[in-house]
């Protein structure tokens, strides 16, 4: 019965917007399913299973042979998605009483069955399943589950279910393989923790807390080290005899997207750093790095136009020696010596910033306007490298956000708990309309920053000032000014206004300000220009 159980899980995950609810569904899966099915399901959810033998065309031919072409076309037209159409229209055969297949059985058979026998095998399964089961099977075969479960989420659910720390699971995760039987047995207390040996595994990252004013006052400059906080992607580099990997902050393997970094990792170490697009030593805006993310294959042109590099700031392992217990100053010295000795291509050292007092540090922070710098990182000189966000060891001190007064233009309903609220706001600024007048041009979208009371107020205002509806979106009277804060403004060809904002959020509702007095696009553009020349 386990393919139907997996199908039921997929069905729930597809429709569940909330993270907590997704976690509950995953915990229930781990707790109720037998081995090896629960591990196979986990691998399928996180995209670890890839089948190549059965192509969508095969499914297309199978259903065409069993249905009327006119009815199939009308149905496909109505449903939209072809896999779903097949699952729903597949004719149920009278008298079929073979049991539904096991998930593990399906996966094994797909790997071992000769291509010529696949249609008969798959048809037999489809006959034995209901519509939900058929859809799960087809999506599994053709590789498009898309249920919004990241590897990280699956591991958090494993941690919650087993009572183990997620960091402990992260450390072995990439050393175990589907169906993860050894992992499940360890989590259930039935076996020892799996030993990844030399396999490249992800080491949970040390994270920083936002610095509050009170923390700042208590800061002793002698005990703290400062670095720039780069606006890139945090990565971990793992290389050794067992292989090379580039991990994202959440432990996803992003090696495939950055082959030039992997190629440069001809060493045996584990490093922590910031992935950036760097041209002639200068860090490009975050938007450039975005061009390189979420790609399975990277063309040479991509690598040339958006060259990636890593700015290193910590050394976790040198060879097989675990340095994480050492104080930060010692690790830093080891890192500097290591970089000097290896001089790896595409990598450099994130410089330390000297400061004598908190006041001086604050001045340095305010002076940094380059778009590639988000602010400062403060690291305690004696801090070991510990997983997660331990208070008092590392601080992030973002520079003060930029701000504009924009006009609310459109609002959209949120998801999950916010599904009854208009909580996503598109806002715009004034610019000349070319005919002697002024027009609003949308410059961004924000869905955070407001309090619950402000959200309720905004929701009511939007419902009372709606001028048009487009599906879930409402257009509103151009009458409400919102103070929007953001971390940086960058030129963008993908936005109508020509500018993109980093982390825009609502700071205040400006009922005191008429819409005509909101900012103009050129005010925002001056931030882009100001950000250009300087560099840390």
């Amino acid at each position, binding site marked *: 019965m386990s393919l139907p159980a997996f199908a*039921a899980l997929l069905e*729930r995950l*597809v*429709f*569940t*917007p909330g993270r907590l*609810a997704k976690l*509950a*569904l995953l915990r*229930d899966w781990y707790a109720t399913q037998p081995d090896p099915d629960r591990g196979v399901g986990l691998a399928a959810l996180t995209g670890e299973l890839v089948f190549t033998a059965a192509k969508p065309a095969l499914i297309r031919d199978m259903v065409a042979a069993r*249905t*009327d072409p*006119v*009815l199939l076309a*009308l*149905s496909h037209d*109505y*449903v*939209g*998605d072809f896999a*779903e*159409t097949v699952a*729903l*229209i597949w*004719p*149920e055969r009278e008298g079929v009483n073979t049991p539904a297949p096991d998930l593990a059985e399906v996966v094994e058979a797909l790997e071992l069955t000769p291509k010529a026998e696949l249609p008969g095998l798959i048809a037999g399964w489809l006959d034995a399943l*209901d*519509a939900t089961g058929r859809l799960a099977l087809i999506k599994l075969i053709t590789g498009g589950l898309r249920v919004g479960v990241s590897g990280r989420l699956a591991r958090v659910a494993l941690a919650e279910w087993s009572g183990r720390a997620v960091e402990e699971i992260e450390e072995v995760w990439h050393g175990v393989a589907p169906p993860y039987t050894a992992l499940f047995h360890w989590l259930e207390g039935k076996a020892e923790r799996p030993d990844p040996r030399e396999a490249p595994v992800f080491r949970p990252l040390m994270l920083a807390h936002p610095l509050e004013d009170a923390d700042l006052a208590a800061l002793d400059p002698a005990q703290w080290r400062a670095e720039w906080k780069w606006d890139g992607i945090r990565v971990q580099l793992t290389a050794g005899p067992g292989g090379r990997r580039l991990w994202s902050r959440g432990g996803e393997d992003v090696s495939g997207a950055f082959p030039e970094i992997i190629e440069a990792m001809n060493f045996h170490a584990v490093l922590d750093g910031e992935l950036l697009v760097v041209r002639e030593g200068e860090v490009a805006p975050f938007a450039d790095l975005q061009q390189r993310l979420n790609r399975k294959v990277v063309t040479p042109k991509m690598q040339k136009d958006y060259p990636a590099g890593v700015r290193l700031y910590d050394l976790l392992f040198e060879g097989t020696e675990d340095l994480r217990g050492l104080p930060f100053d010692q690790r830093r010295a080891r890192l500097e010596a290591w970089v000097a000795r290896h001089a790896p291509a595409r990598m450099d050292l994130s410089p330390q910033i000297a400061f004598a007092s908190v006041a001086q540090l604050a001045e340095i922070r305010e002076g940094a306007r380059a778009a590639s710098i988000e602010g400062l990182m403060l690291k305690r000189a004696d801090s070991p490298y510990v997983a997660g966000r331990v208070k008092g060891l590392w601080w992030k001190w973002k520079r003060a956000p930029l701000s504009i007064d924009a006009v609310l233009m459109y609002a959209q*309903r949120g*998801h999950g*708990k916010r*599904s*009854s609220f208009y909580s996503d706001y598109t806002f715009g600024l004034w610019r000349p309309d070319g005919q002697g007048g002024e027009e609003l041009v949308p410059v961004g979208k924000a869905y955070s920053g407001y309090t619950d009371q402000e959200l309720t107020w905004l929701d009511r205002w939007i419902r009372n000032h709606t001028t048009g509806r487009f599906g879930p979106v409402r257009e509103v009277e151009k009458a409400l000014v919102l103070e929007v804060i953001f971390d940086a403004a960058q030129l963008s060809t993908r936005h109508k206004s020509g500018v993109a904002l980093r982390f825009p959020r609502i700071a205040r509702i400006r009922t005191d300000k008429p819409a005509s007095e909101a900012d103009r696009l050129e005010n925002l553009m001056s931030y882009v220009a100001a950000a250009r020349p300087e560099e840390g």
Partner: protein
Amino acid sequence: MTPPEQWLRVTPQGLFCAPAGVFIDPTRPVARAVITHGHADHARPGHGAVLATAETLAIMRARMGEGAGDRQQALAYGETLRLGEVALRLVPAGHVLGSAQVVLEYGGARALVSGDYKRQPDPTCASFEPVPCDVFVTEATFALPVFRHPPPAQEIGRLLRSVALFPERTHVIGCYALGKAQRLIALLRQAGWQQPIWLHGTLIPLCRLYQELGVELGELRPATVAEKSALRGAIVLAPPSAIADRWARRLEDPVVCMASGWMRVRQRAKQGGVELPLVISDHADWDDLLRTIAEVGAPEVWVTHGRDDALVHALAQRGVRGRALHLVGLGEEEEGVDAA
């Protein structure tokens, strides 16, 4: 035999049986109307004389008061009434409480006007009765082969498993006020759910009426006055328009469910922001439409509303003459229309 197309025809007001002088489910006020069931797209206000089952008449009075017809005449299932030279009787359609098919006999021919119908068992109403006929007038709401409704008990099982998995949350089910709401309650009772079921205010009058007409629904409570904490782990029924809007804020982190045949298609469920789609319908699915047409054995089938293109095509392959009537105004309440 006088072929039905000579005495049963489509007029701007709806289907009209001339020798009996009655319209069936007319969309505008007429002198004499036969009403198949109480849904607003079939039972409209302002007619002179209205003929229907006693239950349908009671539903009409509850929904439209004065507008339920100047003169009302109840006809029990199976009783024959002579209207001129036409013999008319009502047989169960299995759609909602009181729903009926209209059997018309004239000049040696028999026409069966089914209104809306389903073949799945429903604890709140009498089961559909197939009657052999020369012309079968059918709906086609779900006439695409992608629509196959699973057994309702299976869907209720999914709902109850979800309630067990999320005991802190309120499960709110979007459903129509007439028929679906009461059927869901009865199905929940059959599945062993003994706790009170909470109702949005607009569902209460018809649930009370069903109870007065002898349908067991167990303990029902108004959700509108309940404390939020009392709704933790509870099942709440509400009209589809309320489930994802402001009304639902009174609920405890709601799991938004929707009970409709349209929930079979993912995109439809996603559009409505539904977290748990329940495929429970009061209309015949594709297989049941074809099965019913085979059972009544009519050589000719008229399709009132819905996906007539697919159904007429499938009938042609079976040697049955299909004809799309394109009746306007039907399918505007209940599942016939896009669930908001």
